[in-house]
């Protein structure tokens, strides 16, 4: 009977909704990296109460009775912010039934919105969370238009809620892939882009219920989706790699001054870094690209990020889609630090590199000061690491999101436990779980 009862209890626990409440806690005596570009400090304390960061620094008193986690020998940081991901959109990339990143056969483009597809129980989210990623922006990929649609901001918490901000940006793809999507040339892509923004502008200024121009190319839904873009209310992410393509992106502002541009890719950004900086346009890039993989990337170098930062560009490490895993953010940042020791290369300081995977992507995503940072009032996303988070040997030992401690029980973690030995003497492996 007891056994049945305990089984019933266990089943009830499994069936219960995951309504875990935020815990108040203090992490003490850890090496603290706030994510804000400041250098790490030792012997620091982080206080989280009510799901928010209350304090982070040295010499902070821990209120009596607060649950305390000893951070001796460990590092404490904000959760990583993974910019421009496809988290929650696929289970297995190559299994198209499980993959919602793009819609090749949809009649719509700019109006596509990733929100209905986002799956908080997604394995890729669980694995990324175990790697210290707590927030992300999620982008659709282009189907058959240069407009991919609207991305969202998410949290990676182990609960039913996933969307932090829907329709957080629109993505348009230029350069070589944009040319292909637009009908075969950059010329065509430029016309498609300008025409779409003009139609959106016309729609924005039309009186309610007025007919659109009879030669409108965009569906009403797509034109309407671009209205907040031309008004500057929704950022326009533009993927472009070649220096000349980047210049063309920056020039968009002359006709559409309200545009809030974010460059994605910018492999040759270092060649036009001062122009990007002068335009105040931030960049999300893959920092370790160094091969001329396409003609639009002939100038690719790992020094791209460092050189852009030196010129005053705000640069986030990102583009964690396809099989570029979000949990690799730390090693990519670490590699930029490695460049500082190579004559002729330009890298980032440790603090700059860490900011490029925490506060800077959060700022570019419009949640600066709230996410990717350990500062009073920020979300209670805290990661405790077993060492320098950028080092290959380090990994999170605990992750909190909104003050809630997260489980480490992904499919991968369970496989590891099952196969830690290969003993099948008494039962097949199917019974060890």
């Amino acid at each position, binding site marked *: 009977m007891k056994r049945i009862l305990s089984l019933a209890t266990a089943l009830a626990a499994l069936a219960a909704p995951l309504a875990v409440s935020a815990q108040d806690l203090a992490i003490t005596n850890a090496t603290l990296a706030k994510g804000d570009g400041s250098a790490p400090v030792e012997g620091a304390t982080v206080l989280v109460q009510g799901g928010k960061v209350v304090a982070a620094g040295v010499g902070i008193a821990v209120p009596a009775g607060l649950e305390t986690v000893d951070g001796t020998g460990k590092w404490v940081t904000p959760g990583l912010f993974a910019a421009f991901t496809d988290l929650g959109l696929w289970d*297995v*990339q190559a299994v198209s039934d499980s993959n919602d*990143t793009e819609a090749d056969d949809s009649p719509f483009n700019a109006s596509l919105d990733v929100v209905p597809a986002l799956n908080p129980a997604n394995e890729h989210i669980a694995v990324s969370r175990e790697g210290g990623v707590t927030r992300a922006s999620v982008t659709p990929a282009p189907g058959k238009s240069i407009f991919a649609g609207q991305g969202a901001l998410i949290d990676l918490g182990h609960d039913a809620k996933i969307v932090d901000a829907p329709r957080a940006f629109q993505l348009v793809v230029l350069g070589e892939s944009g040319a292909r999507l637009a009908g075969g040339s950059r010329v065509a892509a430029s016309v498609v882009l300008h025409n779409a923004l003009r139609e959106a502008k016309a729609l924005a200024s039309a009186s309610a219920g007025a007919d659109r121009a009879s030669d409108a190319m965009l569906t009403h839904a797509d034109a309407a989706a671009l209205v907040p873009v031309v008004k500057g209310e929704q950022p326009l992410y533009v993927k472009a790699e070649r220096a000349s393509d980047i210049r063309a992106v920056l020039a968009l502002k002359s006709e559409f001054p309200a545009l809030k541009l974010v460059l994605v890719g910018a492999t*040759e950004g270092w060649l036009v870094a001062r122009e990007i900086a002068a335009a105040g346009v931030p960049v999300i890039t893959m920092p370790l690209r160094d091969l001329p*993989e396409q003609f639009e990337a*002939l100038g690719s170098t790992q020094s791209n990020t460092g050189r852009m930062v030196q010129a005053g560009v705000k640069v986030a490490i990102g583009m964690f889609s396809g*099989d570029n895993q979000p949990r690799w953010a730390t090693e990519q940042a670490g590699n930029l*630090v490695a460049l500082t020791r*190579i004559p002729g290369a330009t890298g980032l300081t440790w603090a700059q590199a860490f900011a490029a995977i925490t506060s800077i992507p959060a700022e570019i995503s419009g949640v600066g000061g709230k996410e990717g940072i350990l500062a009073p009032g920020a979300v209670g996303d805290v990661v405790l690491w077993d060492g320098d988070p950028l080092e290959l040997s380090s990994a999170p030992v605990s992750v909190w999101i909104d003050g809630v401690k997260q489980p480490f029980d992904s*499919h991968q973690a369970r496989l590891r436990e099952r196969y830690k030995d290969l003993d099948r003497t008494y039962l097949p492996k199917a019974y060890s779980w």
Partner: protein
Amino acid sequence: MRISPEIGRWGSAVALALALTLAPQAQAKKKDKAQSASTEVPYASTYKPYPGRPTALVGATVFDGRGQRIDNGTVLFAQGKVVAIGGGDLAIPEGYDRIDATGKFVTPGVVDAHSHLGDYASPGVDANSDGNEATSPTTPDVWAEHSVWPQDPGFSRALVNGGVTSLLILPGSANLMGGRSVLLKNVPAITVQQMKFPGAPYSLKMACGENPKRVYGSRGMKPSTRMGNFAVNRQTWIDAKAYMEGDHSERDLGNETLEGVLKGEILVQNHCYRAEEMALVLDMAKEAGYKVTAFHHAVEAYKIADMLREADVCAAVWADWYGFKMEAYDGIPENAALIAKQGACVVIHSDDPNGIQRLNQAAAKAQAAGRRMGIDIPDAEVVSWFTYNAAKTAGVADKTGSLEEGKMADVVLWNGNPLSVYTRPEKVWIDGAMLYDADNPKMHPVSDFELGQPGEGDVK
């Protein structure tokens, strides 16, 4: 080669392995009774080591590639060969250039047992897509070396960022039998023969699983299933055996390769993700009478690591790739450590023009994942995953892959521990010739393709 449709969606164009839309083409079958398959060495290596100076690396932490670590070590090489390695007491003979390597690390040259550089070159345009002869499920007649473009800028990145001195170029995995591989010395060259690793055996690239059955099944051809994969393979081996036992009156390029495998002269590199498929391949090898040298992309090797140890087959793996295709769904970061724990042979491979620049880092991640579950593998052993074990997989462990007297002086001087993210190669020697020096801009190789382009000669 994995053939995932979304490799580096925003970046890499290397996924072109998937763009398999070539017109069918009859398998080459040449009749030439005057020549015999076994007596000639066509397309022979013309590689000659570049001149080097007798060099002593002094005061370094030395990982010899075979599990030994020497603190405050000395490495001597001259005339292209390792002369000696030892501690601080090792005498430095007259005439050696002495390089103070205090605080630095020395390893054997890195070996990648799975690369497509040259065959899928950058830029990854269709015109450079030469890695899969995807016109027949078995093409043991094709040789990867006939596709290698020596001007692929990827070679230089592998050298300067990855310390890669030798790399095994394999045909892709569209076919069950993709063709012969070629082992290259990572020296800038105009011809592939000038890169060919002298005395290296050939390998046959084979592939299990999703890729062959998808590529041919989607055309309404056999194989369209995993059982079809095996049926085609088995019949091909049966036919090859008949050829081997025949009078060789007609040359058959494909069967010459397969005969080489059956005679043990040609190694087998088998792309295979899943545990049960690897087990079936081992039985197929028994049935046909050959040996598998290594399973590549063996993401489920951890489930059968004991079996791999008993079969003496290496598992060539990534650190933590998973999820990009169905057969990679069970990939875990602890794979390499769990294989090592069972005493089986671990190789960290790249299959990727970016990954090849960081094999040392991938190994470090795999080591750390093991450590977190209580499997402690010393740095010196982890270094063997991308040196000696990879050389063994390529069939040249007697020539390179470790710092032992008389072996090729393929050597990397790192500016820190190669298992740290903050470390990069400082100098790289191939057969005793310095071919990269971080401190000398003129010692950064620049391929023909990059001359006059943005960033020519840049530190990449």
